[in-house]
């Protein structure tokens, strides 16, 4: 692993870290919503550059982690059917369902394929008219336009053998849910830059006003994250609570309007269950009734599955920022990336996988007792 100070811009990183130390006068808890940012923080040792008063709390922005177990089990049931080609992003294949994962289904003869883009799944459907092709459409607002387009072009081309198993989740309702939790201790948020590149940030001022919290739109590179933290601390120290865009080279206030237009056309807002967290009102998208014939859940009639979650897994508390991964009793013991109990140990964006892969086996509170 390479730490940040080994990089070309290590000096800039150090000076940003010094600036954060200079302006910090008391303890602050800041949540990075996005799992990609969590991995950047742990991979590059950004948290270890920060003053002890700044605690980074890892948020629920890992689509693979929060996809409900019931939907994973539905995916497994569909993928195991003969005559089905099941297409997914690679991250989903090792996510544990109640009994199996998609890799296991493939090992047992299921035709499970990893695609780079949802449109690849549509092409596979065109090339295989005698098969039912199902795309596993999970993700936050960044990924939703791609999935919406796949369904839209399938409808335009009258494809009868393409459908999508959709489980989309949204960032702003998750921020609201975290702030409303009685166990919440978060004082500022780094908002996910690429979510905002699609959606803009017009939804965020209502949150900063309602909960009196700073929200800083932040990119994924180490310097972006340090700058997001610096701007959060400046607001916290000054008692301010507003939306600040620290990712201006990508994000505009209004976002990508053509993408938002198609999202509105294809999807409608629903209450969505988040794995490990529970139902968050109006926190997801599902296909509108006009697109129902492309809804795999409808086409394959796989509702009513009985799910079994591991009793040892604390991923819900990890996803809400209540527990650090290495504070979970099963971390690195019963639960590893090879034999994960929960999705947070699987995904390239899961906090538990980040802690495991980058050797964070001892928690900060354990260290103080050493």
């Amino acid at each position, binding site marked *: 692993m390479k730490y940040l100070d080994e990089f070309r811009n290590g000096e800039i990183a150090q000076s940003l870290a010094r600036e954060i130390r200079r302006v910090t006068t008391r303890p602050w808890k800041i949540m990075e919503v996005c799992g990609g940012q969590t991995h950047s923080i742990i991979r590059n040792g950004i948290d270890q550059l920060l003053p002890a008063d700044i605690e980074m709390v890892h948020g629920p922005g890992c689509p693979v982690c929060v996809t409900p177990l019931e939907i994973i089990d539905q995916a497994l049931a569909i993928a195991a059917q003969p005559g089905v080609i099941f297409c997914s992003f690679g991250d989903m294949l090792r996510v544990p369902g109640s009994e199996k994962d998609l890799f296991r289904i493939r*090992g047992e003869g299921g035709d499970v394929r990893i695609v780079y883009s949802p449109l690849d799944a549509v092409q596979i459907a065109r090339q295989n008219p005698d098969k039912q092709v199902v795309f596993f459409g999970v993700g936050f607002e960044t990924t939703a336009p791609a999935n919406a387009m796949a369904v839209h*072009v399938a409808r335009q*081309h009258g494809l009868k053998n393409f459908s999508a198993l959709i489980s989309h989740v949204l960032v702003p309702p998750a921020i609201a849910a975290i702030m409303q939790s009685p166990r919440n201790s978060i004082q500022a948020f780094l908002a996910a830059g690429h979510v905002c*590149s*699609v959606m803009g940030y017009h939804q965020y001022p209502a949150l900063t006003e309602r909960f009196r919290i700073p929200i800083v739109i932040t990119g994924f*590179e180490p310097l972006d994250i340090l700058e997001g933290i610096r701007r959060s601390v400046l607001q916290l120290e000054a008692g301010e609570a507003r939306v600040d865009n620290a990712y201006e080279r990508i994000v505009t206030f209004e976002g990508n309007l053509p993408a938002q237009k198609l999202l509105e056309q294809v999807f409608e807002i629903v209450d969505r269950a988040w794995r490990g967290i529970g139902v968050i009102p109006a926190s997801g998208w599902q296909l509108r009734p006009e697109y129902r014939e492309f809804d795999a859940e409808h086409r394959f009639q796989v509702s009513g599955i009985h799910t079994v979650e591991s009793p040892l897994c604390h991923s819900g508390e990890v996803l809400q920022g209540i527990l650090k991964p290495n504070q979970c009793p099963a971390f690195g013991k019963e639960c590893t990336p090879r034999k994960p109990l929960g999705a947070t140990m699987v995904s390239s964006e899961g906090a538990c996988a980040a802690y495991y892969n980058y050797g964070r086996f001892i928690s900060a509170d354990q260290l103080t007792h050493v």
Partner: protein
Amino acid sequence: MCLAIPGRVDAIFEDGLSRMGKVNFGGIVKDVCLAYLPDIAVGDYTIVHVGFAISKIDEASAQQTLQTFREMGLLEEELSASEACNAAPDKEGQS
């Protein structure tokens, strides 16, 4: 999963489904859907997520990000993930 990689549009074409582009990510070229950036032209830079161009970016910022991703080993990891997994499924698959 929300990572997006910057690249340069080398060519624009129709593939029967959508307006597409050949996008060059520091030497790796992929087919990318351009439907959400109707104004984008050959030579422009964009950030790409799961095969979709979602936002324009200036060349200097794009090059800097590509360099950072390359140093961190993210570029290959992100762009070759699906091929690698599909090529060797069963070894990985059994646990």
